[in-house]
């Protein structure tokens, strides 16, 4: 074989015939229910994905949160009886374009509630390399929020968000796949809650406390990196693990650890077990009780910015009641997932008890989360 022919072959036969595939076509209809800390939230979530030809995949989503009562920090600091809001609706649409080993994705979503509007645009590109054993992806997301306040029509603030994502998944052996992802988020604007208050010791009566509005920085920059692994056991089952580290310029450091096990049973059943542990340290400007008014430039008493841990076990069951293959394949599953979260706070106190400020019991609560959904692959 001539050397020229050899050189041509080198160029003509790159990445041996591995081509990416479009995501599966499917329709998911889900009912979600959350009950914890005095709040119940439920609603539907619908996700549909359809291919158009061999190169394009379209997706659409619809999601509603219906909230029944208010969370502890709003109830006890009495800012607004409505709590966060009563109903939130979110719509989304996306398009994926596949070309050889490369997938380009674009997505848009909009969320609306009576005092908050958010619009997000996401872009991503992913590439299969090394015969499809490695997939590299990059993404960018941009969000723009309008913050309002109930009974205050003149109140109008904005938030701009930018997110940068990098990911790599790697097939290591025929049983093991790893994933590494990184995400940097930068927010700018009105980042706090217009209703929430912080508390400080009453200068006239140390056994009492007074409130003032929370004050947050106008920017927030965060970094998160996560490592995931999925391993196929010698029999048909899989174990998974995940660790995520988060840090931001508000002083919050968080670790998330998850371990999971999927166990198929006979041909139609799947059982999921998972345990999630989350721990975070408080933001620099967080305090459950400030010594006096305007004690700092920035003031926060949001329990989401406090020091806390949560334990979350999960049990899930999936039943495949339809699995027809052939010319017009059709598969359908019904799924029930139950999660139980146990939150315990190290520096956020439960103000529903009558005690000297700073001596109230530390807050803790449990939440049950249920998901019932039907998936259809067509």
């Amino acid at each position, binding site marked *: 074989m001539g050397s020229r022919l050899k*050189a041509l072959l*080198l*160029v003509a036969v*790159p*990445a041996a015939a591995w081509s990416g595939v479009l995501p599966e076509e499917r329709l998911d209809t*889900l009912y*979600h229910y959350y009950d914890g800390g005095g709040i119940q939230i439920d609603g539907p*979530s619908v*996700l549909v994905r359809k291919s158009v030809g061999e190169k394009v995949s379209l997706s659409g989503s619809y*999601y509603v949160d219906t909230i029944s009562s208010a969370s502890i920090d709003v109830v006890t600091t009495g800012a607004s009886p409505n709590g*966060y809001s009563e109903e*939130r609706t*979110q719509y*989304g649409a996306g398009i994926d374009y596949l070309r050889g080993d490369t997938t380009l994705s674009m997505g848009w*979503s909009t*969320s609306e509630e009576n005092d*908050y509007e*958010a*619009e997000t645009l*996401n872009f*991503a590109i992913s590439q299969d390399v090394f*015969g499809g*054993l490695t997939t590299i992806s990059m993404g960018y997301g941009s*969000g723009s929020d309008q*913050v309002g306040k109930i009974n205050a029509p003149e109140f109008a603030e904005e*938030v701009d*968000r930018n*997110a940068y*994502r990098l990911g790599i998944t790697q*097939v290591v052996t*025929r049983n093991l*796949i790893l*994933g590494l992802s*990184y*995400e940097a*988020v930068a927010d700018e604007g009105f*980042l706090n809650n217009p209703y929430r208050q912080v508390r400080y010791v009453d200068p006239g009566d140390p056994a009492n406390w007074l409130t003032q509005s929370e004050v947050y920085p106008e920017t927030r920059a*965060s*970094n*998160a990196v*996560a490592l*995931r692994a*999925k391993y*196929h056991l010698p029999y048909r089952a*899989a174990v*998974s693990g995940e660790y*995520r580290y*988060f840090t*931001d310029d508000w002083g*919050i450091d*968080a670790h*998330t650890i998850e371990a999971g096990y*999927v166990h198929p049973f006979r041909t139609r059943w*799947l059982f999921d077990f998972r345990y999630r542990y989350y721990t975070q340290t408080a933001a620099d400007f967080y305090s459950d009780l400030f010594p006096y008014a305007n004690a700092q430039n920035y003031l926060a008493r949001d329990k*989401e910015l406090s020091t806390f841990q*949560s334990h979350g076990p999960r049990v899930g069951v999936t039943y495949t009641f339809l699995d027809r293959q052939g010319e017009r394949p059709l598969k359908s599953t019904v*799924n029930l997932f139950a999660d139980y979260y146990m939150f315990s706070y190290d520096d956020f106190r439960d103000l529903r008890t009558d005690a000297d400020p700073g001596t109230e019991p530390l807050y803790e609560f449990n939440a049950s*989360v249920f998901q019932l*959904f039907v*998936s259809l692959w067509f």
Partner: protein
Amino acid sequence: MKAAAAIVAASLLLAGCSGIEPWVKPYERDRLADPIMSFDRNPVSGSYIDHVHEAREGARGASGSSGGGCGCN
């Protein structure tokens, strides 16, 4: 001449990349193709749970879902 050199360099690089033979052959990927080996088997459920976490925790990002905004402030 420069263009030719650039093309040769680029194709050698490409050949070099493809020169790494996949050590897990296409016919050995049955287990990896099993839905139980997917990181996010049910995206509608995954994105809901990510939302449950983000609304109550300070951390965000690198969770798998590319997120949307909400009034979870």
